């Protein structure tokens, strides 16, 4: 009796299992969509739509102060060619992202090597390494502006004491550009070091032991083991750095505000000036499109490079 009931109960369940399976599948899909919906809605409203809107606006002369809002085709793009601010900023942006990325990688690698070696004070070094990352960029910008102040800054004071010269950093275009690049490296190389250090720690120790047995010295182990093994990570991070530096705004805003003249201005600062300070939405959007194209180009080239360099160990 019991057995029979079980069977008679079991049979309809078995036949309906196909329907209930598809029902649970549908439920599962619905659940997935519900859970990811807030994240994707946010990105849709504040990332996807704004890109399209930026492209559209770049063909208009929308200006809040002038009250204009007409479709003007490519005029903004043609005007950019004659705009000294934009032309100078485009050039310096490219120099800036290349120089800061290379410096970030080189100095980041040096810091990572230091943090990976054994010495008393290593924990202390690893902890303070996070300070440049954690300090607000705008604060770092002003702190360095003051540290490099030609009258009462510490570094120019030391230079004067040692050489008798009186350096005036923020009056000279080239020196200002170098300062922006170096301070940016101060802020970001420690972050790069954290990532590269993680990569180094992921390399199996027995590879080093094997190299030691083969008689490789420290330098050889670094060049023939560490470097090739963390190359994919280095390229990925270099690529991220290039793209992120394109939008870098805070440091230039604080350290030089693009000065002297427009010598250290970057595209990000030009967009802010034209769009947010002068409310020239159309023109600012055209500069934004140039920036977005640069992001797309560098991203594509970077991904291609990255796929070629993938190694396994």
């Amino acid at each position, binding site marked *: 009796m019991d057995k029979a009931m079980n069977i008679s109960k079991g049979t309809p369940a078995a036949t309906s299992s196909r329907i209930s399976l598809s029902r649970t599948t549908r439920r599962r899909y619905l659940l997935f969509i519900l859970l990811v919906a807030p994240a994707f809605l946010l990105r849709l*409203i504040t990332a996807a739509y704004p890109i399209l809107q930026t492209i559209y606006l770049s063909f208009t002369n929308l200006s809040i102060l002038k009250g204009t809002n007409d479709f003007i085709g490519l005029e903004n793009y043609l005007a950019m060619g004659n705009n000294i601010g934009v032309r100078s900023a485009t050039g310096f942006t490219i120099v800036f992202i290349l120089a800061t990325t290379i410096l970030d990688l080189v100095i980041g690698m040096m810091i990572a090597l230091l943090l990976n070696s054994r010495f008393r004070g290593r924990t202390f070094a690893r902890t303070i390494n996070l300070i440049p990352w*954690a300090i607000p960029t705008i604060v770092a910008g002003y702190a360095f502006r003051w540290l490099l102040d030609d009258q009462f800054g510490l570094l120019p004071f030391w230079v004067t004491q040692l050489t008798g010269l009186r350096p005036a950093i923020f009056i000279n275009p080239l020196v200002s550009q170098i300062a922006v690049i170096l301070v940016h490296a101060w802020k970001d190389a420690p972050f790069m070091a954290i990532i590269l250090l993680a990569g180094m720690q992921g390399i199996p120790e027995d590879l080093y032991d094997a190299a030691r047995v083969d008689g490789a010295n420290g330098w050889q182990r670094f060049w023939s083991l560490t470097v090739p093994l963390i190359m994919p990570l280095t390229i990925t991070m270099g690529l991220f750095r290039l793209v992120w530096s*394109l939008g870098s705004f805070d440091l230039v805003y604080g350290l030089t505000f693009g000065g002297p003249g427009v010598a250290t201005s970057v595209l990000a600062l030009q967009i802010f000036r034209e769009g947010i300070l002068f409310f020239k939405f159309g023109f600012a*959007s055209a500069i934004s499109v140039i920036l*977005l194209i640069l*992001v797309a180009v560098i991203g594509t080239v970077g991904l291609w490079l990255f796929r070629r360099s993938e190694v396994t160990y």
Partner: protein
Amino acid sequence: MTMNKSLANSSWRRTLSSIPVYLAFIVFTILVLLPVYWMTRSAFAVSTDLIKLPLVYFPQPTLRNFATLLEQVPFGLYLRNSLLFAISTTLVTLLVSYLAAYAFARIRFPGSGVLLWILLLSMALPDIGTIVPLYQILKTLHLSDSIAGISLILTSTLTPFTVWVLVSFIKQVPYEIEEAAILDGASLPQILWHILLPVTVPGLVTMGLINFVNAWNNLLYPLSFTTSPSAKTLSVAITEIYAGYSPWGKPWELIMAVGVTMTIPIVILVLLSQRSIVRGLTGGAIK
């Protein structure tokens, strides 16, 4: 005897070979801490001590600059706004990202890999690149010049990376725990809240800290989208004080005092939770 000699020799060589490391350590420490020292020294000094030559390395410490800030600008209000902005952004980002990360880590869905990839790809978009439409969107939503508005935008910016890290954290949790709960008839909210949340706490804390630092330090959104003291943050305040001239030039003692105020909470957080933050920055890869 010869044994002893070679031992002494090798310990000598070890000491010698560690000299470059210690030199590098000293240079590194000076380079990292020099601007911090300079900022702190200036924030706690009387302005006249900052314009003396030769320079005064350790001026008489004073809290006068902070008192001046409280008198001359709505400093307390800016501080409150910064906290409100950072905390609300952090919490909403964690909530939105946790839900999405659970879906990506645990629910089979056709094309979920591509969706996650698209989400990550959107991280490449520079904040400044879409600043004009964002300004218009906040106007349309009646959220311009409000903490809620800048929180919304920054939440969206921080979500992709947070989702990515949380996915890797959730994937490290053995599925058996949830499976048992599901068999016991637990509902999804129960699983998310009672079963998975407690074991995902390290990941949430990590990303909470990183997002808090990001929001607290954020300049672009408050600078672009807020105009009244009730919504401006400390990062905006420091730019305004810099822009205000004093008879002797820039009021560096006040600028550095705001800088110190912005740096102290962040540095304390970092010193207390170094390992956790590093784990998050490396995408949850390091334990």
